[in-house]
C-alpha cells in the first residue's frame, strides 16, 4: 500500500485519469512568469498578482539571513518547484465523502483520524495537502456564528476587502527574506475572521503536510479577531520520509483587535531527516501577531520535527494593556538544528508578556533559544517575564540561549531566568529501580520538564504532544 502511494506521489503528471493521487507540478525554477502562473491557477484578481510581484522584486534584492545558529547547505531557489496541487481538486469536494479516498488513507496512516476528530472533538479541519485545501468542514456551523474559516485562496475571491486590508499588515511583504519569498509564491493556507464580540464556537484546526518531492511549501495564514472576539487555532503537521531537503517558508499573521484574544497552538513534526540529517525539512517560518488595546495573543508551540528550524512567533503589543505569551517546547535529536524563540515588542502602556521556553537536545543536535524583549519609550509600566530552560540528553548535543533585551523605558520591568540541566543518572536510576525501562523513564522526565508548556495546549493536543515526544525520544537513550 505504502509503496503504491509513494509511487503515485512521485509520478509526474500525465494527461488522463489514474486511480492514485496525481499532482500538477510546475517545473523547478522561479521567475515572474512562475508567479503569474501561480496567480492565474488561483484565478486571482489583478491586485493580488501585483502584490506578489512586488514581494518578488523585494526578495530579489534581499540576502538570505545568516545570523542564526544553523548550518545547512546553500539553498538553490531555482531547483525548487513552486506549485503542486492534487489533481482531483479541480472540482472541489463539498464534504469528506467527496474527498479522494486515497488521500484520506494517507492521512489515516499518519495517525490523523479526520472522521474521528470531526465527530468526537468537534474540530473543523481545514486539510491542506501540499498546497491546495482539500476539504473544509463544519463551515456551516461556523457560518451561523458569522465566523469565516476558509482557504486563503477562497478568501481572496470572496472577501477581498478583508484580505486587502490585513494581508501583510503584520508581516510586511519585505519583512525578511523568507517572508518576502512566501509573499511572492504562497499557494494556499487558512483565513479566519471572527466578527465583533463573537466567541468562536469550536477550536479551528489545520493539518499541513508536505507530500510532493522537491516542492517548497509556502503556506500563508491570516487570522483576524475583531473587537472582543475569541478564537483558538490549532496547527499540526506530519510529513512522510523524503530524500532531498525540502524548503518550507510559511507566514502566519494574527490581528487581535481591541479586547480580542487569539490562542494559536502548533504541534510541528516535519520529517527531521535520517540519522545523518539527510532529507529533512528546512523550516523557515515567520509568525507574528499584533495586539490592539487590551488584546491578548498566546502562542504555544511544540517543535519536534524538521532538519532545520528558524522560527520566532512574536507579538507586537501595540495597544495599552495588551498581553503577549509564548510557550514553547523544542526537541531536537539526531542532527537536527533548531533556532527558535520569540520577540515581544512592547509599545503600549502596561503591556505584559510571558515567555516560557523549554529546549530539549538529544543525539548530536543543536537547540538554540533566541528571544528579543523590546520595551519602547511609551511602554510605561510594561512587564516581561522570561523563563528559558534547557535539558540535555547525552553528551554530544548542544543547548544555546541568545536573549536580547532592549529597554527604552525606565518604568518597564524585564525578568529573565535561565537554567540548563541534564537528565541525570540519579533520576534514571530511580525510575529504573521502580520498574520503568530507560525509554519510558526519559520520556517521563522530559514530559515533566515540559509540563508548564503542555498545560497551555488544548487537551487533545496536549496528549498528542506527549505522545509525539515519546515517539521522538525513542532510541535516544543509551
Amino acid at each position, binding site marked *: 500500500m505504502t509503496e503504491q502511494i509513494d509511487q503515485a506521489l512521485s509520478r509526474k503528471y500525465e494527461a488522463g485519469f489514474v486511480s492514485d493521487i496525481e499532482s500538477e507540478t510546475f517545473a523547478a525554477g522561479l521567475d515572474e512568469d512562475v508567479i503569474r502562473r501561480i496567480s492565474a491557477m488561483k484565478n486571482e484578481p489583478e491586485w493580488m498578482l501585483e502584490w506578489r510581484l512586488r514581494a518578488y522584486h523585494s526578495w530579489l534584492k534581499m540576502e538570505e539571513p545568516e545570523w542564526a545558529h544553523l548550518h545547512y547547505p546553500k539553498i538553490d531557489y531555482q531547483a525548487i518547484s513552486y506549485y503542486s496541487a492534487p489533481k482531483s481538486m479541480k472540482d472541489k469536494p463539498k464534504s469528506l465523502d467527496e474527498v479522494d479516498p486515497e488521500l484520506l488513507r494517507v492521512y489515516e496512516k499518519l495517525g490523523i483520524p479526520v472522521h474521528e476528530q470531526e465527530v468526537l472533538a468537534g474540530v473543523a479541519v481545514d486539510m491542506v495537502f501540499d498546497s491546495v485545501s482539500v476539504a473544509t468542514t463544519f463551515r456551516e456551523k461556523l457560518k451561523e456564528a458569522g465566523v469565516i474559516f476558509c482557504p486563503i485562496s477562497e478568501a481572496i475571491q470572496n472577501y477581498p476587502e478583508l484580505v486587502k486590508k490585513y494581508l501583510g499588515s503584520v508581516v510586511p511583504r519585505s519583512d525578511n527574506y523568507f517572508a518576502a519569498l512566501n509573499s511572492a509564491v504562497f499557494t494556499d493556507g487558512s483565513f479566519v475572521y471572527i466578527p465583533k464580540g463573537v466567541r468562536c464556537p469550536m477550536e479551528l484546526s489545520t493539518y499541513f503536510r508536505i507530500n510532493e518531492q522537491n516542492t517548497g511549501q509556502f503556506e500563508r495564514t491570516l487570522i483576524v479577531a475583531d473587537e472582543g472576539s475569541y478564537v483558538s487555532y490549532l496547527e499540526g503537521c506530519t510529513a512522510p520520509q523524503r530524500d532531498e531537503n525540502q524548503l518550507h517558508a510559511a507566514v502566519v499573521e494574527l490581528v487581535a483587535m481591541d479586547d480580542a484574544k487569539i490562542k494559536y497552538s502548533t504541534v510541528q513534526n516535519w520529517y527531521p531527516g535520517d540519522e545523518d540529517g539527510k532529507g529533512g525539512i528546512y523550516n523557515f517560518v515567520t509568525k507574528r501577531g499584533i495586539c490592539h488595546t487590551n488584546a491578548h495573543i498566546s502562542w504555544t508551540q511544540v517543535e519536534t520535527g524538521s532538519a532545520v528550524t528558524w522560527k520566532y512567533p512574536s507579538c507586537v503589543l501595540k495597544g495599552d494593556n495588551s498581553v503577549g505569551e509564548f510557550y514553547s517546547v523544542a526537541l531536537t535529536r539526531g542532527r537536527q538544528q533548531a533556532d527558535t524563540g520569540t520577540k515581544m515588542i512592547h509599545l503600549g502602556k502596561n503591556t505584559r508578556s510571558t515567555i516560557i521556553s523549554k529546549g530539549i537536545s538529544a543525539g548530536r543536535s543543536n537547540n538554540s533559544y533566541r528571544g528579543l524583549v523590546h520595551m519602547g519609550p511609551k511602554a510605561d509600566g510594561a512587564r516581561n517575564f522570561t523563563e528559558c530552560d534547557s535539558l540535555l540528553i547525552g553528551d554530544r548535543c548542544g543547548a544555546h540561549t541568545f536573549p536580547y533585551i532592549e529597554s527604552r523605558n525606565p518604568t518597564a520591568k524585564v525578568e529573565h531566568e535561565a537554567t540548563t540541566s541534564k537528565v*541525570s*543518572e*540519579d*533520576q534514571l*536510576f*530511580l*525510575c*529504573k*529501580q*521502580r*520498574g*520503568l*525501562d*530507560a525509554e*519510558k523513564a526519559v520520556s*517521563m*522526565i522530559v*514530559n*515533566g*520538564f*515540559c*509540563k*508548564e508548556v503542555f498545560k497551555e495546549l488544548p487537551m487533545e493536543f496536549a496528549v498528542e504532544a506527549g505522545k509525539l515526544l515519546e515517539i521522538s525520544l525513542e532510541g535516544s537513550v543509551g
Partner: protein
Amino acid sequence: MLTIDNLHARVGQQSILKGLNLQIKPGEVHAIMGPNGAGKSTLSYLLSGRDGYEVEGGSVQFMDDDLLEMEVEDRARHGLFLAFQYPVEIPGVSNMEFMKESVNAIREQRGEEPLSAAEFLKKAKEACKQVQLPLDFLKRGVNEGFSGGEKKRNEIMQMILLEPKLCILDESDSGLDIDALQVVASGVNSQRNSERSFLVITHYQRLLDYIKPDFVHILANGKIVKSGDASLALKVEKEGYAFLGIEATEEASS
C-alpha cells in the same frame, strides 16, 4: 529469598566488598550496621544494579534468578525495592503519575491487569495516610521541594504501593527527627509479613528500637565480621565498633 555468596566488588580501582556472605529467608528482617566506608551503601547499590559497581567475584541469588545478570528494572519488577538514602527530584512529573507507571510496570511483570486510575488513586490515598503525608503530595512533582523527612516518607509510601518481596532500606533513618522516624518505622512494620524480607542498612541502633530485626550484621572492610540478634546492635550502640577490633577506613567511599 536472597543468597549472597562470597561477593567481591569494586568501585573504580577501589575494592569495597571483599567476600561478603549473607542469606535472607522470606519474612526475615536483617539489619546491617557498620562504620563509615564499610561498604553498606555499595551493597545496596550493587543489589539494586546501579552502574559503576563492578563485581569481581561471588554470586547473588534472588529467589530463582541470578540477580547480577538482571537489568535494574527487571530486578525491580521481580520485587526488589530500594528505599533511597537521597531520593532525587523529578520536576514536573507528579508523584501519582510516577507511582502509577511504576505499579503497573510491576503488575505487568506479575501478569496482572494494570490498575485503573480510580483503583490506583484509592490505594495511593491509603498509602499516603499511612505515612502521614497530606494527599496533595500525590499531585506534587516527585520529591520536588520535599523536606528530607518528607522524601523518606515518600519512599516508604512507594514501598507500600509496590508490595515488593525484598525491601532494602538504605539509611532511611538518616536526617529524621524522632516523630518522622516513628512514621517511617510504622510504615515498614505494617508491611512485615511471612513472605516479605527486609534488609535495613543503618548507622544507628535507634531505628532498630522501632523496626525489630531478626538478625544484626556488622559490616566492616567489605565483609560481615559479626552476626547476632538485636542485642548485637545494642552492644555496638554502647561500646562502638572498637570491641570488634574495627576502625573506620577513611579512604573507602560509603
